[in-house]
């Protein structure tokens, strides 16, 4: 009994150490780059060394926990929901879920809130909207809702693509052409924000869920290859916000 318990303990410790070691290797490049530039190029000592070390430890532990939780919860939930909704057979609920997932996670996204308020400031100082807080808030909220709606719609579109087996490259190329066309016509001030909005939408928690959703769908539907068809949802979620935000700019300005 004692040996079994100590064996289990040793295995658990080994498992934890291995996870932490993986996180360390993931973070090593950043440490090396910063150390190199600070010590060799800028040649100044690091300020607040203690805080930096504490922060680094937190980052390593946090990343290890996150990756573990990823495999325990996020992936299974996403795939399980995809497969359960498919088995239920209701297209309406599947699409509603897809849209709601994209919309709800984006609307609460802190990076988006930050970008929207920054964009409102720029528009205010640029004289594009009235110079008062209410107008800026309305503009920022409009931007957030536009992006959230576009992400929800893109997840919905991505799910539909997997179900109907629409070819991905046609849709993506079509999307890029639309973006290029709108870039030519859209007001200068909204272009940078539109491009960045596409980049920040998919957060650290949304990405695994959406990926698991797509892969789960492609696994359970006959005739779909998970690798070829399961991905692509994130691609839409990065592309469509650009189109919608530029459209928002065209309408507002």
């Amino acid at each position: 009994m004692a040996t079994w318990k100590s064996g289990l303990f040793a295995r658990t410790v080994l498992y934890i150490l291995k996870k932490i070691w993986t996180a360390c290797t993931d973070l090593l490049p950043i440490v090396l780059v910063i150390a190199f530039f600070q010590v060799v190029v800028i040649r100044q000592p690091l300020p607040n060394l203690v805080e930096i070390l504490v922060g680094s430890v937190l980052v390593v532990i946090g990343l290890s926990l996150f990756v573990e939780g990823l495999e325990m919860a996020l992936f299974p939930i996403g795939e399980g929901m995809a497969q359960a909704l498919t088995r239920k057979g209701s297209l309406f609920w599947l699409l509603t879920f897809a849209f709601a997932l994209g919309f709800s996670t984006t609307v609460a996204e802190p990076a988006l809130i930050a970008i929207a308020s920054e964009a409102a400031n720029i528009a205010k100082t640029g004289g594009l909207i009235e110079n008062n807080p209410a107008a800026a808030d309305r503009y920022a909220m409009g931007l957030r809702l536009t992006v959230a709606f576009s992400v929800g719609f893109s997840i919905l579109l991505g799910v539909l693509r997997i179900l109907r087996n629409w070819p991905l490259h046609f849709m993506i190329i079509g999307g890029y052409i639309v973006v290029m066309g709108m870039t030519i016509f859209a007001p200068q001030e909204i272009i940078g924000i539109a491009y960045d909005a596409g980049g920040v939408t998919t957060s650290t928690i949304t990405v695994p869920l959406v990926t698991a959703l797509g892969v789960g769908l492609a696994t359970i539907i006959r005739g779909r290859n998970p690798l070829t068809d399961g991905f692509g949802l994130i691609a839409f979620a990065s592309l469509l916000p650009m189109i919608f935000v530029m459209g928002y700019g065209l309408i507002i300005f």
Partner: protein
Amino acid sequence: MGFLNNFAKDILLTCRDVFPIILLFGFFQLVVLRQPIPNLRRILIGTVYVVIGLTLFLVGLEKALFPLGNIMATQLSDPVFLQGSKASIDLTDWSNYGWIYLFAALTGFSTTIAEPSLIAVAYKAREVSGGSINAWGLRITVAVGVAFGISLGTFRIVSGTPLYIYILVGYVIVIIQTCFAPKSIMALAYDTGGVTTSTVTVPIVAALGLGLSSSVPGRNPAVDGFGLIAFASLFPIITVLGYAQYGQWAAARTHKKHKENQNEV
């Protein structure tokens, strides 16, 4: 005591971000599907890990990485540093900013390697492809793309050329590659473009862009500070598609050589 207060506040903030997802899944599982949640205990523990892990990760980043990144971005674009031992320096000459380009490239590479979202996608890709896609190989390919993209983006800020030219050229390259690349990896390649710009990369890249466009005379931070993120999203697609095409070409060449050897025999 102050640290614990801040920590509790951060955990609550992460919980607030996770809350819509919990509501959504809870509603769909219990109301729409009307099934109990399978493996509830494991999922609850996993979710707690995710929340605590993400909070620690973000707190650590804000304590350690972001202040450093900010300081370094400012120092590297400081005119005093750039001038060094030279008598005088033209601050708008793009060839003076070599360290910035190198810093941008290395930072882009290393933050992408650390990016949790990319780790998630790479693990899924490896699992789904039965191991034929190497998780590290994918991550390094994406990181190289981001490194090149951000470096090119900083060059753009310094030289002042408009954003849309670069993006349009990039899109054309991607479209051409799409016609020739193996279909199996296409969706994954496009996804990596959207995944790279996340928790770690965005704040650092934004700080770099804003710091640089504030230092270089004649650049408008409001307009030029954005756009680096677009570069970081676009170029990974090119490198991943390129790597897939190379793999395809190399495999075809080996196959052809093998056939020729067989025919000779």
